[in-house]
């Protein structure tokens, strides 16, 4: 864990610092929205990460479901990764929702509306809240399996979130990227955007790695405790 921090933290912080400088001081002020548009450099990267890490969670959960009987020890590693990705997803989804609401109040005049994009994204957030609640508060040996099944539904919701502004009429703007003519950002805004996507991605990877390593340590500590308890019972029987 120490090495992950020593290597990962400076890299992530350096990209984020340059990204912040670009987003706040270098990128041009947008014509219709003004300074408020700069929240774009935080809202969109957070939302991208909130749609990306669910697939880490999903892949790890699927791996857990497949090998939990044949290779229980390795399955624990997959489960630790799933948990780490789920927690980081929830953080990014929360930032995406919060920045979106602030921006919406300024640019649309409303904090919230029940259009397809906002609703499906809220659903993703709720799915990960329930995922973590499920892991925290259920007892018994089925917790990891149930959580892994829940992650499948989150994985179904992600493409719906992504496509919502293409399939339906929404309050949320139609796609800025890959949106066809009359969309896109000014070339002078690209560095700020790319740096923030890269920086938040590095930050997310760092958090997932650290959380994974922590969870593995906890699992090993639990296994050791169980083993010692078993051994002491055997000795008392003898």
């Amino acid at each position: 864990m120490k090495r992950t921090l020593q290597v990962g933290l400076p890299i992530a912080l350096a990209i984020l610092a340059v990204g912040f400088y670009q987003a706040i001081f270098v990128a041009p002020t947008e014509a219709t929205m003004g300074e408020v548009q700069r929240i774009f450099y935080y809202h969109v990267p957070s939302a991208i990460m909130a749609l990306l890490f669910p697939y880490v969670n999903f892949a790890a959960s699927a791996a857990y479901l497949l090998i939990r009987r044949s290779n229980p020890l390795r399955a624990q590693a997959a489960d630790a990764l799933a948990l780490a990705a789920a927690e980081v997803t929830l953080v990014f989804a929360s930032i995406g929702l919060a920045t979106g609401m602030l921006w919406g109040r300024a640019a649309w005049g409303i904090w919230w509306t029940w259009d397809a994009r906002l609703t499906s994204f809220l659903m993703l957030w709720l799915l990960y809240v329930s995922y973590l609640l499920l892991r925290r508060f259920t007892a018994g040996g089925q917790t990891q399996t149930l959580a892994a099944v829940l992650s499948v539904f989150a994985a179904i919701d992600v493409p719906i979130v992504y496509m919502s502004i293409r399939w339906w009429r929404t309050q949320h703007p139609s796609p800025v990227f890959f949106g066809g003519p009359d969309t896109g950002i000014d070339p002078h805004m690209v560095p700020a955007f790319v740096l923030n996507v890269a920086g938040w991605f590095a930050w997310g990877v760092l958090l997932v790695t650290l959380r994974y390593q922590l969870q593995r340590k906890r699992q090993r500590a639990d296994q050791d405790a169980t083993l010692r308890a078993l051994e002491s019972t055997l000795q008392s029987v003898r």
Partner: protein
Amino acid sequence: MNKSNVGIRVAIATILIVGTILYLAITGVRANKSYYVTIQELQGMGNHAYTRHLRVAGNVKPGSIERNGGHMQFVLVEQGRVLHVSYVGDDPPPDTFKDNAQALAIGMYGRDGIFHATQIQAKCASKYAPAKPGAQTTQTASMSPAKAS
């Protein structure tokens, strides 16, 4: 409970849940006009247009905004069709609501041909261009809660 029995139960539950999600998604796609209607659709709705609470989208016709205390009148244009909107509401419209902006008016269509809105929302373009030097840009004043009241 033997093993195959569990498998069947899980399969049934999966089919039920996935089926429900698919059903909701497909009916949602069919009802894709529900968030707002265009002016053309509003005028083609016949009698239904007068009885429903609607959201109408259009572009604000330049120079058409007339403010009068808490009351405001403006004209929405969309592909040559015109809709007169009369707005009476508590909140001032967002700063992005101005000439040529995309806007949503929420309220009821009156038999007098005027749309009586109780809420105005702006809608943002998907193109971000830099402001011209010296040009007036929207400031972030609407972020302060004092102005919203």
